[in-house]
C-alpha cells in the first residue's frame, strides 16, 4: 500500500477509542427515551414514532460494533508486534482483565433490547455466571440482577463498563479523547450503516434463538458441550493465558499465540456454522433455507413514515406488546372471538413487522395467507396456537398425496412397492413425476394460496386456509370493492366449520366423491353439446372448469343435509400424526359408528383429548353428563355425536345445528349380515360409482404444460383422453384390514377401475413405449342409498363379480348347468379381458390386479360360491327362509338336493 496513505490511517486503538466516544455520547442521548423497566416498549416506540431516536440508537449500535471490531483488531495487532513486553506488567494485566469487560459491555447492550431473544440470552448468561466456582451466584446477582428486571444490566452497561473501559484506555494510551483524525475515520464508518441498517427488534418467540454475532460461536460450542462448565473453564483459561503472556518465555509465548490463533480460527468456523447452518431447534439447515425469525435490520425506510398523522395516534398494545399494524388497520371486524385483533393483533398471523409505521417495512415478510403450509410453523402452528395440529397436517395425506404418488409411480413402472411413503412436494422430474406435477399436484394442502378470496371450485391448496377460511357476504362484498388490493375492514373469518366448497374443488377430481355425493356424474360432453339437450339445464351442471355433469342418485346423507365434515373429523382430514400409505388407511370412521343397534361406545367429556374438548366447547355441545360417541376403532371421538338418554346416537349437523337420529340397521340387514359376515355396508348400499373404462395417456414433447409445484410452464405435456365414462354399480372385491385386536379381517367392498389405460411412456430418444395397465382400486364412491341392492344384483351380475358388463345367464337346457357370459365390450389383445373387465370370467385372477397390496378381486372359489347362490336364485326367491340355512350349510345340504335343482357342476363335486 502507498506508504503515505498508510501513515494517514490512525492506529487501531485510536479508532477504537473514537468509536467508544461515539458510543458513549449516543448512549447519553438515549437515556431520556430508554426505560429499563419497559425496555422493549421504549425501543419499539422509538422505531414506531421517533426517527431521530431510532437513528441515535442505530448509531449507538454500529459504533459499538466498530468499537468491538477495532478493539479486537488492536489486540491482535499488538500481539503480532509482541507489544506485551513493551508495557508494564500491571498495565498489561489491567488490559487483559478489561477484555471481558468489553465483551460484557457489548453483551449488556444486546440484553437491553428486552425482547424474547435477549431475555433468553440473559438467562444463559446468568446460568454461566453461576458456574464460576465459589463466587458464581454472587457474580450473577451482582452483574445481572434477577428476574426480567434489566435495571442492573443497564447500570453496568451505562456506568460500570463505560468507566472501566475509559479508565483502562487512559491508563495504557495516556489519552482521554481520540484524535480528530480518528473521529473522522470512524464517523463515516458508522454513519452509513446506521442510516441503512437499522437494528430491528424481535417481536415474538422464535423456534431458534440466536445471540449477538460475536457470541454465536460460543453458542455453537455450547450446543456440543454437555457440561457448560467446560466453556467457562476454556474462557477463563484463555483470559489467564492472555494475562500472563508477558511473563512467559519467548518460545512458550509464541506457542501460546499460535494456540490463540488456532482457537480464533476455530471460533470463526463455529460462528459461521451457527449463523448460516442452524435453524429451528438448533438443527442443521441449508444456508439457503428460509431464515427463522424476523429480519435483523431494517432499511432507511425505518426513518420514514409517509403519513405524519399516523405518528400522532396511540399504538395499541396486544398481548403486552405494541402492535403498529392496528394504527392503520383499525376497527377490523369479521373474526370469531379467538382470532379478534384485540386478542391476536395482525402480525401473529400475517407476520410482517408490528414495530414500524412505514408501510413497506411493516409489510416486509408478511404473508397474505397465514394458513399456507410454507409459513404455518410461524403462524397458525406456533407453540402458543395450533402447534401440534400443524405437525399433523404436514404429514397428512391431504398434504403428501402419498397414495396418489405411489400408485402413479407404480403404473409408470418407477416403483414396485405401492405402500412406500411419498410426498408430492418432493417430486423430481421422471415421467411419473412430471405427470403428477402437471396434472395432479395442485390438489395438496401444501400448495400455497396466493390470492385473497373465498374457497371455491377452482381453489387449490392454502394449508389451514384451504378449509377454515370463510368469507361471509360482507367479506365478499369488501373483496369485490377493494379488488383484494387493500386490507379489508371486514376480514374473512377463520372458522371451525368447514364449508362444502372447501372440499368440492379437489374432490370433484380423481374419485369424484364430492360430485357423486351430491348426485352428479361427469359426462364427456362439452358445454355447447350439453346445451343442445332438451334436459338442459335442469339435468346438468356446469363446473367452473368447464366439465359437464348430469344428474344421478345423490347420497342419502346429502339428502338429509349432511356435509362432509359431519362425518369426517380432524383426525382424518388433518391427519393423526402417523404416516399412511393410502387414503383408506387414514379413514377412522365407519357406518356402524352411527348406524348401530345397541352398545355404541362413548366417552364422557373429561375422557376426551384436548382438541376434541375444545371443538365440542366451541360448538356449545358440552352438556354435563353427556357422552360422546367414539368410533368403533376407538381412535377418535365425534365432536357432533352423543348418546341421548335412551342410548341412541344423536348427530348434530355442524353447519345447521339440526339434530338427526341415525337409524339402526334394518332387520333384513342384520339377517343378511349373518350370511355375509365380510360384507361392508357400502357393498350393498352403493348405488353407483363413476368409472372410466378406457383412457389413453400420452406425452407430447412439443407442447408445454403448467408445473403446479414450480409454478411455471415446462416443456412437455401429458394428455389424458377418456372415451367411456360410466356411472353404474361398481364391482366388488376384498380388502384386508388389521382390526384393533391385531387380527387380519377381510371385507367385501366396492371397487372401480383405478385405470384401464394405454400409457405412452417416454423412452429417451426413442419413440414412446406404449404400455397397457388394468388395475382396480377399492373406492368409497359416496353414493349411499337407503335401499340396498338386491341379491341378484351381486349374485347374478357379471359387473359385480368383476367380469365387466354384459349378459350373464345360467344355462340349464338339457344337461347344461353352467353360467354363460356375453361381454358387452370387446376383448383387449393385451390381456384377453374385455374392455371394462377386472378379471376373467370364472378364472383365477393372475398377476397384479389392484393398486393396493391389501386388496384383491374374488378368487375362483369365491366366484363359484357367489354364482352358486345366483344359480339358485334363478328359481328360488331370495326371501325364502330355507335358503339361508341351505347356503350356510351347503356342504351338507348338497347331498340332499332335489333332482330338480340344477346347481353348477363345481358345487356338487
Amino acid at each position, binding site marked *: 500500500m502507498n506508504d503515505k496513505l498508510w501513515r494517514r490511517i490512525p492506529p487501531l486503538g485510536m479508532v477504537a477509542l473514537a468509536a467508544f466516544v461515539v458510543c458513549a455520547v449516543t448512549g447519553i442521548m438515549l437515556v431520556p427515551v430508554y426505560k429499563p423497566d419497559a425496555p422493549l416498549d421504549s425501543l419499539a416506540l422509538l422505531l414506531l414514532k421517533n426517527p431521530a431516536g431510532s437513528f441515535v440508537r442505530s448509531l449507538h449500535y454500529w459504533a459499538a460494533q466498530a468499537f468491538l471490531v477495532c478493539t479486537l483488531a488492536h489486540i491482535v495487532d499488538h500481539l503480532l508486534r509482541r507489544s506485551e513486553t513493551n508495557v508494564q506488567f500491571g498495565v498489561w494485566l489491567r488490559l487483559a482483565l478489561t477484555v471481558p469487560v468489553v465483551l460484557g459491555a457489548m453483551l449488556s447492550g444486546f440484553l437491553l433490547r428486552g425482547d*424474547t431473544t435477549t*431475555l*433468553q440470552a440473559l*438467562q*444463559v448468561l*446468568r*446460568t*454461566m455466571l453461576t458456574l464460576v466456582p*465459589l*463466587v458464581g*451466584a*454472587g*457474580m*450473577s*446477582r*451482582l452483574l445481572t440482577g*434477577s428476574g426480567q428486571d434489566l435495571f442492573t444490566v443497564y447500570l453496568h452497561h451505562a456506568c460500570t463498563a463505560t468507566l472501566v473501559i475509559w479508565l483502562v484506555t487512559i491508563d495504557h494510551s495516556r489519552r482521554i479523547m481520540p484524535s480528530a483524525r480518528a473521529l473522522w475515520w470512524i464517523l463515516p464508518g458508522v454513519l452509513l450503516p446506521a442510516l441503512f441498517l437499522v437494528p430491528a427488534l424481535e417481536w415474538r*418467540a*422464535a*423456534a*431458534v*434463538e440466536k445471540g449477538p454475532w460475536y457470541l454465536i460461536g460460543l*453458542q455453537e460450542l*455450547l*450446543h*456440543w*458441550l*454437555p*457440561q*457448560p462448565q467446560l466453556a467457562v473453564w476454556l474462557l477463563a483459561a484463555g483470559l489467564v493465558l492472555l494475562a500472563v503472556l508477558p511473563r512467559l518465555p519467548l518460545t512458550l509465548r509464541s506457542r501460546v499465540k499460535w494456540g490463540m490463533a488456532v482457537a480464533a480460527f476455530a471460533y470463526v468456523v463455529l460462528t459461521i456454522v451457527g449463523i448460516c447452518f442452524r435453524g*429451528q*431447534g*438448533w*438443527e442443521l439447515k441449508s444456508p439457503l433455507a428460509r431464515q427463522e425469525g424476523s429480519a435483523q435490520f431494517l432499511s432507511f425506510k425505518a426513518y420514514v413514515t409517509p403519513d405524519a398523522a399516523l405518528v400522532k395516534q396511540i399504538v395499541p398494545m396486544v398481548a403486552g406488546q405494541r402492535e403498529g399494524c392496528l394504527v392503520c388497520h383499525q376497527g377490523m371486524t369479521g373474526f370469531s372471538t379467538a382470532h379478534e385483533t384485540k386478542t391476536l393483533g395482525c402480525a401473529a398471523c400475517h407476520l410482517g413487522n408490528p414495530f414500524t409505521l412505514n408501510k413497506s417495512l411493516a409489510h416486509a415478510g408478511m404473508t397474505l395467507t397465514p394458513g399456507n403450509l410454507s409459513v404455518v410453523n410461524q403462524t397458525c402452528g*406456533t*407453540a*402458543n396456537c395450533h*402447534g*401440534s395440529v400443524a*405437525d399433523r397436517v404436514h404429514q397428512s395425506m391431504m398434504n403428501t398425496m402419498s397414495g396418489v404418488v405411489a400408485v402413479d409411480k407404480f403404473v409408470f413402472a418407477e416403483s414396485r412397492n405401492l405402500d412406500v411413503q411419498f410426498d408430492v412436494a418432493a417430486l423430481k422430474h421422471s415421467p411419473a413425476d412430471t405427470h403428477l406435477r402437471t396434472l395432479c399436484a395442485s390438489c395438496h394442502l401444501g400448495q400455497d394460496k396466493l390470492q385473497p378470496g373465498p374457497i371455491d371450485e377452482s381453489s387449490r391448496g392454502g394449508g389451514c386456509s384451504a378449509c377454515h377460511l370463510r368469507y361471509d357476504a360482507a367479506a365478499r362484498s369488501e373483496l369485490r370493492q377493494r379488488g383484494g388490493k387493500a386490507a379489508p375492514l371486514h376480514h374473512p373469518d377463520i372458522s371451525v366449520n368447514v364449508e362444502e366448497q372447501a372440499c368440492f374443488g379437489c374432490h370433484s377430481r380423481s374419485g369424484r366423491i364430492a360430485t357423486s355425493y351430491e348426485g352428479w356424474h361427469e359426462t364427456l360432453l362439452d358445454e355447447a353439446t350439453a346445451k343442445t339437450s332438451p334436459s338442459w339445464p335442469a339435468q346438468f351442471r356446469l363446473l367452473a372448469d368447464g366439465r359437464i355433469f348430469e344428474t344421478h342418485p345423490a347420497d342419502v346423507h346429502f339428502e338429509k343435509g349432511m356435509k362432509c365434515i359431519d362425518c369426517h373429523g380432524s383426525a382424518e382430514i388433518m391427519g393423526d*400424526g402417523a404416516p399412511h400409505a393410502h387414503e383408506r388407511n387414514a379413514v377412522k370412521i365407519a357406518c356402524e359408528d352411527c348406524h348401530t343397534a345397541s352398545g355404541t361406545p362413548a366417552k364422557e367429556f373429561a*375422557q*376426551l*383429548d*384436548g*382438541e376434541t*374438548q*375444545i371443538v365440542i*366447547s366451541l360448538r356449545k355441545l358440552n352438556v354435563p353428563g353427556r357422552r360422546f360417541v367414539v368410533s368403533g376403532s376407538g381412535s377418535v371421538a365425534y365432536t357432533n355425536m352423543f348418546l341421548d338418554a335412551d342410548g341412541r346416537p344423536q348427530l348434530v349437523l355442524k353447519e345447521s345445528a339440526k339434530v338427526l337420529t341415525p337409524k339402526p340397521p334394518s332387520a333384513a340387514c342384520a339377517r343378511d349380515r349373518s350370511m355375509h359376515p365380510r360384507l361392508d355396508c357400502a357393498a350393498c348400499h352403493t348405488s353407483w360409482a363413476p368409472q372410466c373404462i378406457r383412457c389413453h395417456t400420452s406425452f407430447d414433447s412439443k407442447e408445454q404444460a403448467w408445473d403446479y409445484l414450480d409454478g411455471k410452464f415446462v416443456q412437455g405435456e401429458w394428455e389424458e383422453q377418456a372415451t367411456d365414462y360410466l356411472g353404474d354399480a361398481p364391482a366388488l372385491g376384498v380388502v384386508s384390514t388389521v382390526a384393533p385386536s391385531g387380527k387380519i379381517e377381510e371385507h367385501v367392498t366396492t371397487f372401480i377401475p383405478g385405470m384401464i389405460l394405454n400409457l405412452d411412456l417416454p423412452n429417451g430418444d426413442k419413440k414412446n413405449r406404449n404400455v397397457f395397465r388394468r388395475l382396480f382400486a377399492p373406492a368409497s364412491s359416496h353414493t349411499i342409498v337407503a335401499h340396498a341392492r338386491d341379491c341378484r344384483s351381486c349374485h347374478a351380475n357379471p359387473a359385480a363379480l368383476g367380469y365387466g358388463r354384459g349378459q350373464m345367464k345360467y344355462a340349464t337346457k338339457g344337461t347344461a348347468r353352467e353360467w354363460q357370459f356375453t361381454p358387452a365390450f370387446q376383448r383387449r389383445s393385451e390381456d384377453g379381458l374385455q374392455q371394462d373387465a377386472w378379471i376373467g370370467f370364472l378364472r383365477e385372477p393372475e398377476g397384479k390386479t389392484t393398486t393396493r397390496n391389501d386388496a384383491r378381486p374374488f378368487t375362483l372359489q369365491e366366484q363359484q360360491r357367489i354364482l352358486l347362490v345366483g344359480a339358485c336364485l334363478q328359481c328360488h326367491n331370495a326371501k325364502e327362509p330355507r335358503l339361508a340355512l341351505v347356503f350356510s350349510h351347503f356342504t351338507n345340504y348338497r347331498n340332499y338336493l332335489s333332482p330338480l335343482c340344477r346347481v353348477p357342476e363345481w358345487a356338487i363335486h
Partner: protein
Amino acid sequence: MTLSGSNLRRLLLKAAPALLAAPALWLMDALAKRTGELPENANAMLTIPLAAGNGIRFYDKAIVITSAEGVSVLSPTCTHLGCRINHAEGSQLVCPCHGSRFNARGEVLHGPAGRNLHPLRYELDQAGAVLRITLNSEQARTP
C-alpha cells in the same frame, strides 16, 4: 532484599487489593444469597383454567401437559443453560438456544442438556376448574 520501611509499605499497598478481594467476594456472595431468601422473592402463583383441555401448553414460567393420565407441570427452564423452552415438535419439548430435547415427562431425549426438566408444584382445583402452579418451586429430581 530486606524489608525496609518503604519496601514494606509498597508491599502492603500492592497486597492490599488482593487481601481485600477475598472478603469482598464473600460479602458479594452473602448479599446475593440473602437477597434470594427475601420474602419479596418468594414463590409466585400462576393460575390457569382447566377447561383448556389436554395437550402441551406453554406459559412464561410453566409448561402444562394434560393428558388422559392427568396433569403434569414442568419448569420451562432448560436444564442446560436456562433458556425458556417455548415450543414443541410433536410431543418433544425443544430448547431454541442449543437444541436440547425433552419428552412430555420432562426427560432428556437429546443433549446438550444432561438433566431432566424440573417439575413444579401445583394444585388442581376441580371445583373452580383451575390449576394453581407454584412458580419457582422446582422439585429435586433424579436426572
